C-alpha cells in the first residue's frame, strides 16, 4: 500500500468542527452529514473538515486526545513498555499531520504536540525495527504485534516481506543435494 492510500483511509475519521454557514442535512453514500448551523459544533469526516477550513467556512476543534498532558503520559508509557501500547486513534499520525498543517491556528500549543507525537512514532518504529531484527535472526515462524497502526505496518511491511522472500530464496538455493536425495516416488 502507498502512504497516500493510508492517508486517504485516515480521512474518513470523524472530527468536530464549528461551521459559520448553515446548510440542511446532506445524504451521501457513505453516510449522512449535518445539518450545519453557524456556531454549533458538528461531527464530520476529516476530508470535509479540511476542505471547509481551507475555504474559511469553519473552525476546527482538536480531538480529545490532542492534549499536552495526555500525550506526555502516553509517550512516557510507550517508552517504558517493551511491547506496543494502544494508541489514541488508529490513525493518530495522519490526523496529527493533517490537522497541524492546515489548522494550526485552531490548535493550542501546536509545536509541542507535533514534537510529542513524533517522539511516540519514533519510539514505536524503533521497537518495530528491534522486533523485526530478532525475528529474522532467530528465524521464527510467526510474530504477534498488538496495537500497531496501519501507517506503521505500511512503513516497514513491504520491505520486510520482500527481504524475507529474498532470504528464503537464498536459503533454499544453499541446499540443492539434500533435497534431490529425499524425493519419494
Amino acid at each position: 500500500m502507498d502512504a497516500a492510500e493510508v492517508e486517504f483511509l485516515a480521512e474518513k475519521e470523524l472530527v468536530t468542527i464549528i461551521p459559520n454557514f448553515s446548510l440542511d442535512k446532506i445524504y451521501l453514500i457513505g453516510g449522512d452529514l449535518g445539518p450545519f448551523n453557524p456556531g454549533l459544533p458538528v461531527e464530520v469526516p476529516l476530508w470535509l473538515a479540511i476542505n471547509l477550513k481551507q475555504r474559511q467556512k469553519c473552525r476546527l476543534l482538536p480531538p480529545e486526545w490532542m492534549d499536552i498532558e495526555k500525550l506526555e503520559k502516553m509517550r512516557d508509557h510507550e517508552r517504558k513498555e517493551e511491547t506496543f501500547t494502544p494508541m489514541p486513534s488508529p490513525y493518530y499520525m495522519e490526523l496529527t499531520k493533517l490537522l497541524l498543517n492546515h489548522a494550526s491556528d485552531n490548535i493550542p500549543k501546536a509545536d509541542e504536540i507535533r514534537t510529542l507525537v513524533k517522539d511516540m512514532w519514533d519510539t514505536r518504529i524503533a521497537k518495530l525495527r528491534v522486533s523485526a531484527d530478532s525475528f529474522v535472526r532467530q528465524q521464527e515462524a510467526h510474530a504477534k504485534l498488538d496495537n500497531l497502526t496501519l501507517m506503521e505496518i505500511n512503513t516497514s511491511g513491504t520491505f520486510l516481506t520482500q527481504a524475507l522472500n529474498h532470504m528464503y530464496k537464498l536459503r533454499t538455493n544453499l541446499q540443492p543435494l539434500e533435497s534431490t536425495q529425499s524425493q519419494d516416488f
Partner: protein
Amino acid sequence: MFVSDFRKEFYEVVQSQRVLLFVASDVDALCACKILQALFQCDHVQYTLVPVSGWQELETAFLEHKEQFHYFILINCGANVDLLDILQPDEDTIFFVCDTHRPVNVINVYNDTQVLFVLCPQTLCTFYCHRPKLTSSNREIVEQTMRRRQRREWEARRRDILFDYEQYEYHGTSSAMVMFELAWMLSKDLNDMLWWAIVGLTDQWVQDKITQMKYVTDVGVLQRHVSRHNHRNEDEENTLSVDCTRISFEYDLRLVLYQHWSLHDSLCNTSYTAARFKLWSVHGQKRLQEFLADMGLPLKQVKQKFQAMDISLKENLREMIEESANKFGMKDMRVQTFSIHFGFKHKFLASDVVFATMSLMESPEKDGSGTDHFIQALDSLSRSNLDKLYHGLELAKKQLRATQQTIASCLCTNLVISQGPFLYCSLMEGTPDVMLFSRPASLSLLSKHLLKSFVCSTKNRRCKLLPLVMAAPLSVEHGTVTVVGIPPETDMSVLGRGKAAESTSSRMLHNHFDLSVIELKAEDRSKFLDALISLLS
C-alpha cells in the same frame, strides 16, 4: 455610480458569474488582486486575470474578451477617463472599478448602470459637493430670458468647477485596503490578507502618492485590525505555532532594506538620508562618518551584513539613530509601519516587501511575454514563494544603488536645468543602468529622489517650489522617451494632462494610467518642452 454595500451590490453579483480581472502594474493593485483572488478561491468563482500596463493593452484585451464576459473588474485603472467612450462596450456589460486615481471622471460617476465604483465611502462626500444646482423657474416669457441668462451663468460656473476639479491629480485610499474591507464584511479576513493590505498602503507611501497625514490615519485603521488578529501572541497559555504568520506594529527606522543589507549601504541608498547628508559630495561622506562616530558604531561593524552585526550594538539601535539624526537635522527618521514574522528566520518590514515586489515587476530582463514579471511579482507575495521574495530583494538593492548613482552623477554634472516654471532633466542613452529607469514607477521614484536631493543641494529658495520634468529613453528601436512630471515637495498636486503635447501635435502616447506619465518621440522633446513652458508660465 458608487457602490454603497460592497457585499450585496458587488460581491454577491459577481459570485455566481465568470469575471475578468484587469489589474494595473503597481504593487497596490497586485495586493488588491491577491486579496480578491483568495476570496474567489474560497467561493469557487471562475475568473480570468489579465495584467495591463497601459490603455492600449487594456483596449486590446477588452476586445479579445468582450464576447465571453459580461462582468469586468478593473483594479487601479479606469477611474480617471471616460470608460465607456474608450472601450465601447455592449449594453449589458458591467464594470466594477476599484481605483485610487483621483479625480474620478465625472461621466463615469453619473453613469448609473454600467460603471460601478467600489471605493471607500469617504470619497463620496467630497464629490457630491461639486455638483452645481440648477434652479427651477416658471414658464413665462419674461422668465425665459432670465432662465437663459441663468443657464449661461450656470454653464460658466460648471466649466470653472470642472476645470478646478480636473486640474490636479491625486490618489485616494489604497485598493488593497478597500478589498480588505470587503473581506472583513464577508468575515473571511485572514492575517495574510491583512498583510497584503498593509503592503498596498505602504506602497502608496513609498511612492509618495498620499500625504503623511493620510498615511498615519490609514495606519491607525490597519492597526486595529492587526491587534484584533494578533493579540494571542502575548497570551502565555495558548501561544500560536511558530509557523503561523504574526504581524506586529513597529515604529521603525526609515532606512530602506536595512535588515537585509548592511547599515552603511542602507544609509547611503535611502533617499532621505542621502539627500540630507548630501552624499554625492566628499563633504557629505565625511558628515556620514561623523554621524556614525557620534553614535559610537565602528565602521567595520556598520559595513557588515546587518544580521551579523554585534548584538550589543543592535540593542538600542533605533533610539540611538533617532537621537543622532535629530542632531544632524533629520527629524523624521522613524516611521510607523508593520512587520511580518513567520518561521524562525523570516522577518520582513512592509517597505522591504514593497521594494522587492516593485523590482520584480519592473526588472528589465526580457524573458517570455510581458506578463511573466507580473506573475512572478504576484507569486512573491505568497508565503510559499520566499525564494522569489529574496530574489526581489537582491534586485531592489541593485535598483536602489543605480538610483543613487544616477542622482549623484546628475547633480555633479549639473544635468538639472531650470526652464523657468519648472526644472528639467534628461537621461542620455549611454548612462549606465539607464534601462532600469524606462518603466514609469522606477522613473517616478528616481525623479522624486532627484528633486529632493536637488532641493537640498542648491541654495536657491525658488527651487523648492518648482516641479520637475524628467525624461528617460524607453526604447531604442522606436526612438521613444518616457516623460514624467513630479510636483514640488510642498504641494501634493501634480501637473494635469499634457495639453502641451496636443497643441504642438508631437507624436505622443498617453499610455499609462497615471496622467503624469507620457511617452514621446525623442525628436519632439524640445517642441514639447517649449509648449509646456508657455503653458505653465
